[in-house]
């Protein structure tokens, strides 16, 4: 047992509850949020790999003391291998995902505390709660536990939108919650089918039951479970047909909130995507379905981004489009493809946070998100403009930044998998992403400043600039030394094929 594994979930939840209790005490909120925020990325770095069993014990095969005296019908059957507890699994891939999620959460909270004039304990509470929920989705090997945190993540996201208090935030929050109230029960119904077939909700045990012939792999109920869980995955990640509401969610949140919300989507996408691949990869259409949905997300997300005049909505659509790249990698089903897809997930979470916080400086300075009303901001703060430009370059996959490496690997993977068409589409859509970003950058920073444009805040908070520099450094490091991450992710990819 490794005590740091449950701490990754318990600490942000405890902090969230405390923040809710002391939400009126601004100074205490700031101190607590910063301390726990720093701990979030530190814990996965310190934790050893292993398993943690909540409310139960390890399988009998690893637990001879417990097995002693039990009848043969238990010790000589599959029950000997089953996990009679809620199991959390922490390996090299989880280490990277939880670290990146924790880092983005910290930077988002750090930025929000400096940009919001009166620190809101409730806002920080929601950010920590969402982070805890998505961390649990990444760690949990129990599909029902995953469903619980899937719901908590949805509620936290709704809360972040409402707490942002932007125009029409309540309307968007209600729409998102309505869809959650359909998608989450569908996910639960899928889990119920799996439970009915295998008698288990532990993912490893479900896979064992299917692979060892305890369950007929052609059972229609298994196909039904696959479809329902797939539907929940589409909702949680914001893939079509949920791409529009997801981008609306990002656009209604404050930029630091949106930076964290998109990280929730990316890691929910990865967490549930891996589970779908683990359980259902024997079905011939699973990978095809993932590729089709991912292609749709890429094409719809990026082309719709091109048409937006609200820069928050534009980034929202770009973020949805970038999810498609991850899906293509997972859908290819080869070790290189899955590694590249997971690497792209790490990169996308970082880059989109970078872009949201970067563009957030424009909202902070002017209070405007409509690009038609903006212009000439380069002279106001050229250093921040440079950082924002680099964030866009990173998303488009310009070398030597990180997405260049992951997108290159994805193109290579699609060619080696015999699907070069996918590689061509990915390259073309990267060019469109670059064009979309440059169009917005020109409108906001380079064209003459409109006479009616008023600058509300002259100085950008130092915390925001520090966050941008940290994110840029990570983009550079991962762009120059991708093996830091890919080496770790490869182990998971090998396990999946």
């Amino acid at each position, binding site marked *: 047992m490794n005590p740091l594994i449950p701490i990754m979930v318990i600490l942000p939840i405890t902090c969230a509850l405390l923040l809710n209790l002391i939400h009126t005490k601004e100074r205490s909120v700031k101190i607590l949020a910063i301390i726990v925020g720093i701990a979030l990325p530190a814990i996965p770095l310190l934790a050893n790999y292993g398993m943690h069993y909540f409310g139960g014990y390890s399988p009998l095969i690893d637990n001879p003391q417990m097995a002693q005296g039990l009848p043969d019908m238990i010790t000589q059957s599959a029950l000997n291998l089953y996990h009679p507890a809620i199991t959390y699994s922490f390996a090299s891939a989880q280490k990277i995902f939880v670290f990146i999620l924790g880092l983005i959460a910290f930077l988002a909270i750090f930025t929000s505390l400096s940009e919001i004039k009166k620190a809101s304990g409730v806002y920080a509470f929601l950010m920590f709660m969402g982070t805890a929920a998505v961390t649990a989705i990444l760690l949990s090997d129990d599909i*029902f536990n995953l469903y619980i945190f899937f719901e908590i993540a949805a*509620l936290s996201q709704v809360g972040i939108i409402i707490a942002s208090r932007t125009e029409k935030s309540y309307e968007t929050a*209600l729409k998102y*919650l309505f869809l959650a109230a359909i998608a989450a029960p569908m996910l639960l119904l899928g889990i*119920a089918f799996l*439970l009915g077939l295998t008698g288990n909700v532990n993912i490893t045990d479900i896979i064992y039951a299917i692979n060892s012939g305890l369950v007929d792999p052609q059972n229609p109920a298994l196909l039904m479970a696959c479809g329902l869980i797939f539907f929940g995955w589409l909702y949680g990640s914001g893939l079509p047909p949920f791409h529009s509401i997801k981008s609306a969610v990002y656009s209604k949140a404050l930029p630091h909130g949106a930076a964290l919300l998109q990280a929730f989507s990316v890691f929910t996408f990865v967490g549930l995507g891996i589970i779908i691949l683990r359980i259902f990869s024997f079905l011939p259409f699973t990978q095809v379905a993932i590729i089709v949905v991912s292609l749709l997300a890429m094409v719809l997300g990026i082309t719709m981004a091109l048409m937006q005049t609200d820069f928050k909505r534009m980034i929202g659509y770009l973020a949805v489009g970038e999810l498609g790249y991850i899906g293509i990698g997972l859908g290819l089903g080869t070790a290189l493809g899955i590694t590249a897809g997971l690497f792209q997930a790490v990169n996308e979470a970082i880059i989109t946070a970078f872009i949201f916080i970067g563009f957030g400086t424009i909202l902070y300075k002017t209070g405007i998100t409509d690009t038609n009303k903006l212009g000439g901001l380069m002279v106001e703060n050229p250093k921040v403009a440079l950082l924002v430009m680099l964030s866009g370059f990173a998303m488009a996959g310009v070398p030597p930044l990180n997405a260049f490496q992951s997108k290159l690997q994805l193109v290579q993977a699609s060619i080696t998998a015999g699907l070069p068409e996918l590689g061509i589409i990915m390259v073309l859509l990267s060019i469109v992403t670059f064009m979309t970003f440059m169009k917005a950058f020109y409108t906001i920073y380079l064209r003459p400043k409109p006479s009616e444009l008023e600058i509300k805040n002259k100085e950008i908070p130092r915390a925001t600039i520090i966050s941008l520099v940290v994110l840029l450094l990570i983009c550079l490091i991962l762009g120059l030394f991708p093996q830091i991450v890919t080496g770790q992710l490869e182990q998971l990819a090998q396990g999946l094929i």
Partner: protein
Amino acid sequence: MIIDIQLASFFTAAALIVLGLFAALFLDNLIKKVIGLAFIGDGVNLFLVTLGFKPGGIVYIFLPGMSADTFAQSASYPLPYAMVLTSIVIGASTLAVMLGIIIMLYKKHGTISSKKILDD
């Protein structure tokens, strides 16, 4: 006869889900939509409860004097019930948040028509 009860229960669960989906997608009144969404959750919960049903089974509590064999053969599977309890709690929380938002929207718009509030 007991199997019929299980079958009837499955059909009821399916009917609740379909009815809930219809209400959530096609009704205009936000409160009616929420009731529909609650139906979907209830249908799934009923499906789970029905999964754990064992004809002639007993509650999963090892009472004094009960033999291990009797317990092993007769006790129903407790996992679905534990899951349903959790699911009910989560469903109630989601419902509360939805109704809270609807109250706020009613104060703002003076109506609970989804067409008037949610259509951009």
